[in-house]
């Protein structure tokens, strides 16, 4: 398992545009929003968080587009199957690598932008943790979408799985409100941690079955 994880980390690190690109796009989107409105008319602090949440959603599916495409097209998936007889460890390693190299920095960027828009610096660990857990859920889900569409383009995978991501967004929005109002954070976090652990352990099984279907 460690070797698989090291291989995936090594490969992703080499593909600069795959992990750096989404992070830069996220920064640009978060900058673009205030530029598109008359900020003297609106209290940006009140709804800027929603923009960060939507940016997380978009960048998550952008980042995981083609997560399995390269391995499918160059024949590596078949070789993994021959050795492992399923894709569980491979998928888990790949998704966790993406979460670490892309999801964690995304949570960091989101936290920084929330400070810039009025959130107290004391709340930053909570925001970071909440965004990290959201990314864990979203990356798993959109990796499933990518595995469904594999070489049919990102639109298909996103269309198939974006509806399933919306409850995660509802949960994230609720988490944001608990931070803004100062109550109920622990409950929402417990739900997110539980969901994150459950999804991270089950989703590789589902993705594994999907990838096997493509190989057939």
């Amino acid at each position, binding site marked *: 398992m460690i070797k698989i994880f090291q291989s995936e980390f090594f490969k992703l690190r080499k593909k600069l545009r795959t992990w750096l690109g989404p992070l830069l796009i996220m920064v640009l989107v978060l900058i673009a929003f205030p530029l598109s409105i008359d900020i003297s008319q609106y209290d940006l602090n009140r709804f800027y968080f929603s923009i960060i949440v939507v940016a997380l959603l978009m960048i998550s599916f952008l980042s995981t587009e083609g997560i399995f495409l390269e391995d499918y097209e160059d024949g590596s998936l078949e070789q993994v199957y021959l050795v492992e007889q399923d894709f569980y460890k491979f998928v888990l390693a790949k998704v966790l690598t993406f979460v670490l190299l892309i999801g964690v920095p995304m949570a960091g960027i989101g936290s920084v932008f929330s400070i810039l828009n009025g959130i107290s610096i004391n709340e930053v660990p909570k925001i970071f943790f909440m965004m990290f857990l959201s990314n864990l859920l979203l990356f798993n889900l959109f990796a499933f979408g990518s595995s469904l569409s594999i070489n049919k383009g990102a639109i298909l995978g996103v*269309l198939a799985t974006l509806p399933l991501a919306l409850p995660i967004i509802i949960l994230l929005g609720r988490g944001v409100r608990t931070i803004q109002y100062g109550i109920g954070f622990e409950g929402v976090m417990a739900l997110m941690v539980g969901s994150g652990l459950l999804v991270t352990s089950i989703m590789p099984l589902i993705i594994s079955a999907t990838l096997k*279907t493509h190989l*057939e």
Partner: protein
Amino acid sequence: MFSSFIHRFSSPKSYVEITRKFFPYISLFGFLLLLIGWIWGLAFSPEDAVQGNSYRIIYLHVPASIFAQLIYFFMSICALIHLVWRVKLAAYLIKSAALVGAMITFIALFSGSIWGIPTWGTWWQWDARITSTLILFIMYLGIITLHGSFSNLEKADRLMSILVVVGVVNIPIIKKSVDWWSTLHQSASITISEGASIDSSMLYPLLISIFGMGLTLISLGILSSKFYILTREKNKKWVQSYV
């Protein structure tokens, strides 16, 4: 033993032959029940004390909402059967049911919007139940699009089944949304555990409409699935002699 039972009754040919016998009765009975329910509800039920005559849309909206979810649930059972026992017929039924499900979900959303104007003063409200129903509609479209994207139809069947099973998590969210989130939406008029919260003069035509719509949708599903089976199995001898 269960596996051989499944395989014995899962031949597309048997399905087409059996449904051909029952289709006229199901469709006629369903249509009649729907007609009775709607005429009773639209013309003979009393006005609602608060909503006046605008409530009468429930005879379309409520059955449509119920079946929007039930059809997906049916699809998820078929998906499990297809994934576990590799029954082709189950995949054919998912594909056919998805079309019917998308249609009825759209009707639920549209009729709900029409009802919203006199009731809430708005075409749309971002509450949990309506939003979940919209999400369900998009899920149906996603399933149909996913299946249509692959030229290898056996692969498409399996991928579609996997997506349906994963998506079924949305159904309890819709059902429980009235309890989980505070919402503008009317709480469920009929629940299994607590009984109806509307008067029997309105309840009976509603129940008749629900059953009528159920049978009508089953007959639509039979038509859709028969056409699809004949298309998919067109190279088989039984199809050539049937047609």
